[in-house]
């Protein structure tokens, strides 16, 4: 099956810093999503981005489907950004979403 690799596995930032999280995948996909899992375990959908670039406030994401990677940018990080960020991809229309192992982000005040 498709492989999803996220990097870095762990990231510690000072409040206000910027960061880039990466997701590499091993095959062509028709769906890619970024999620944030908060400390209570809730998975929150950040972006649906099979290709192109999207922005939502301090967060933006870019997927280069032809090169099989996606990037999540967090600017001016806040302590509430802490948690685990997951990338998930879907290869076909009726296939499941395969998740990476996540990037654990800790933002210190």
């Amino acid at each position, binding site marked *: 099956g498709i492989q*999803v690799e996220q990097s870095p596995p762990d990231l510690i930032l000072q409040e206000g810093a910027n960061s880039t999280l990466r997701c590499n995948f091993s095959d062509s996909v028709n769906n890619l999503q970024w999620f944030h899992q908060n400390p*209570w*375990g809730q*998975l929150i959908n950040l972006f649906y981005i099979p290709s192109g670039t999207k922005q939502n406030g301090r967060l933006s994401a870019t997927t280069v489907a032809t090169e099989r990677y996606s990037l999540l940018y967090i600017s001016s990080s806040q302590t509430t950004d802490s948690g685990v960020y997951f990338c998930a991809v879907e290869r076909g229309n*009726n296939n499941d979403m*395969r998740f990476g192992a*996540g990037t654990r982000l800790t933002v210190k005040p």
Partner: protein
Amino acid sequence: EAEVAQSPRYKITEKSQAVAFWCDPISGHATLYWYRQILGQGPELLVQFQDESVVDDSQLPKDRFSAERLKGVDSTLKIQPAELGDSAMYLCASSNKNRRNSPLHFGNGTRLTVT
């Protein structure tokens, strides 16, 4: 914004007992998923429904796990008997695959502890 509802939020059970989780997807979402997330890992699919039909249950341990979505709306995931290794977060998600660009939406999950 509509949400995926799950209950219970937490469940503690002894090994060899039966346990059940319930999920109500976003209204109109034909596709429903059950994922299991072990601490420190990403979610892994257990079963996927399209309406009332199972699309993929290849990763479901069928000797002890069962899932149903009888009327194509809400769903129940059951474990009988529970084992210590079943301790995990069980997440339900839904999407509208009849519509293009339909993202996956997750519920708050059920955190299961087997003692």
